[in-house]
């Protein structure tokens, strides 16, 4: 059992957790992830580490409630526990002094782009960050991103905040302005990462994406996380999760990630049904007292 030390919503359905696990807090590097299980009957899901506090012994993860597991996790509060957390897994981001770097985060991907932006800054890069959200209320980590960036941009799909448009519009603009860009890291929904790859490809800008295939063990034992990079099979949990964006077969990733879609819906449905029954039972209990 691992204790949740802190839990708060950053935006609608997006929640930050600090989980007590001193060895992971001490060891983790930017770009690595943990695998967690919320309950005894739960599945194992990978979550990228957003930050850690070795002094306090906590690991920070930021979660968007989409499926059963993430929604259930988002009902947890400080003082609650989760069954398992293991890590830090995967290879750390490759950090060096590239020159000018652009870190792009889409949605909750911003949380994952953040630690790498911090590391790139530390390595002496001129750090540009572009963070995209659907709408103003979904913008997260604005202050943190500003603090590590030499230039920080926010885009919203609906124009309710920052630049109206997608992260790729801003990236394209920077390139069109003739800015020298040496390295791009993009993390977010697959279509966004793929779009970024297509923007940088003609300019030969070294671009890295952090992939999120379905995982089970996270230690290289099952091969469920396999992705195609440069037409070769790679295990994202031990060979990645970061890969050269221009070599990733995104279509295969999308199709493999979709395979359990109907199961995920069923799982969510059955969870929400149980929640409803529990609420009704609680209400009954309350009235019968």
């Amino acid at each position, binding site marked *: 059992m691992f204790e949740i030390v802190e839990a708060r919503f950053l935006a609608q359905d997006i929640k930050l957790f600090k989980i007590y696990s001193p060895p992971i807090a001490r060891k983790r590097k930017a770009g690595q992830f943990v695998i967690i*299980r919320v309950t005894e009957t739960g599945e194992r899901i990978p979550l990228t580490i957003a930050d850690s506090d070795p002094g306090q012994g906590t690991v920070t993860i930021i979660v968007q409630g989409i499926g059963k597991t993430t929604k259930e996790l988002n009902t947890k509060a400080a003082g609650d526990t989760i069954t398992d957390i293991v890590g830090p897994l995967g290879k750390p981001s490759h950090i060096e002094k590239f020159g000018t770097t652009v870190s792009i985060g889409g949605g909750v991907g911003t949380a994952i782009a953040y630690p790498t932006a911090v590391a790139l800054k530390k390595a002496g890069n001129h750090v540009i960050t572009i963070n995209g959200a659907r709408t103003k209320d979904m913008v997260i980590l604005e202050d943190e991103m500003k603090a590590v960036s030499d230039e920080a941009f926010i885009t919203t799909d609906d124009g309710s905040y920052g630049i109206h448009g997608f992260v790729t519009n801003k990236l394209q603009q920077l390139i069109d302005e003739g800015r020298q860009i040496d390295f791009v890291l993009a993390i977010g929904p697959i279509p966004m990462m793929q779009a970024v790859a297509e923007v940088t490809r003609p300019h030969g800008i070294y671009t890295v994406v952090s992939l999120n295939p379905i995982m089970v063990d996270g230690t290289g*034992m*099952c091969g*469920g996380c396999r992705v195609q990079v440069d037409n070769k099979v790679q295990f994202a949990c031990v060979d990645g999760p970061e890969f050269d964006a221009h070599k990733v077969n995104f279509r295969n990733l999308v199709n*493999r990630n979709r395979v359990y879609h109907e199961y995920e819906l*069923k799982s969510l449905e059955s969870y929400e049904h149980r929640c409803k029954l529990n609420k009704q039972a609680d209400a009954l209990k309350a009235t019968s007292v």
Partner: protein
Amino acid sequence: MAEFLPPKERTKLPRQVMPEQDPLIRAHNFEEVNLGLTKEQAILDAQRCLQCKKPTCMDGCPVEIKIIDFLELVVEEDFLGAARKIKEDNVLPAICGRVCPQETQCEAKCVLAKRFEPVSIGRLERFVADYEMSKGITSEIPRIDKKGKKVAVVGSGPAGLSCAGDLINMGYDVTVFEALHELGGVLVYGIPEFRLPKEIVRKEVNNLRNMGVEFKTNVVIGATYSIDELMKEEGYSAVFVAVGAGLPWFMNIPGESLAGVYSANEFLTRVNLMKAYKFPEYDSPVLDCKERRVAVFGGGNVAMDAVRTALRLGAKATIYYRRSEAEMPARDEEIHHAKDEGVKFEMLTTPIELLGDENERLHSMKCIRMELGEPDASGRRRPVPIENSEYIEPVDIAIVAIGNGSNPLISQTSPDIDTNKWGNINVDGDTMRTSKPGVFAGGDIVTGGATVILALGAGRQAARGIDEYLTDGSW
């Protein structure tokens, strides 16, 4: 108390048949197939032992269980004594009695095997271990002076568990680190419930815990701690690396990244460890096998476990193997059980391409027929493709069970541990020492995929090696 019959009488007794669940019923459930000998059967079968002057059976046992002594105790109806006798050499008899390939080990070497049928050594091992468990008897807390030295065991499969058990008995403080959330290694994530109930593994682990072994799940050595950190910062004087085989092999044919293609490891882990057969009560799903055509590629125990698991999930399940049945490495018992349950066998056939729809969902495969040519390095006749024998067959789910490479996590983070070209750790065969002072290794990570009993034996041997090293301190 019973005694042995005269030798002539003994050979007249028939080998006892183990009761098992009806094949048609068990094909739909995950309960154990074999039900175990009854007490009367156990005594009768042990009676058949000739108590040879030179008990050749023991030569066949990788850990040299004192087979004739324990069989004698069974005849005397001292089942608890028999269990204790086995445990002198094998700490996990309830497990080995179920999964050891006795037909190629002790029972193959039993003198009776030539003219009659061998003593049912494996079934008797299982019987006495289950008897002991049913009496709630657990191993005693070792009454030995603590040595005040800590040893780390990495991995909780059979190699790790046996090493931990021996070390605790020698007076060391032992911590087992396990990457997954459950203890037991392949015994819990690979071998299915219907062959080895997880409750038995849990009991064995608890037994070790009661003896003082400390278990830490969710710790990946090489990630959470490096081996150097264990030794320099966490105070461990020695480390035993028993991380098992890793990285499943694929066949390197087109289409293996299609959705609907699993490694056996993933398929079995989803079902066994994550309990996908109880979805949605448990969260992890596995693709619905009901009425689906499931193809399993391979001919070993892992392939048999995968195909029988798919069958139980309702599949029309078929094994595809590129050689003939005679070359199949799986245990005979598994092959027979699979056939009785309704698994189909396509021998001398191998897939050469997996085909999918526009969403990259597997829907069919291209296979080719094979014939057997000259023997290869393994001594088995090499399968050779028959020209123009390709055909296409519909398939919904494919499971690749052709073996495992080695997990890179340890060697990546401890480059001073020597490995061979397949990534298996090199050790001294007597002491189990690796090239890194204070670090020992054993089990599948050294041998490549092998057997539970060999892993257990390696764990024991390593415990002796570690004791020797920590006693005299020289490397």
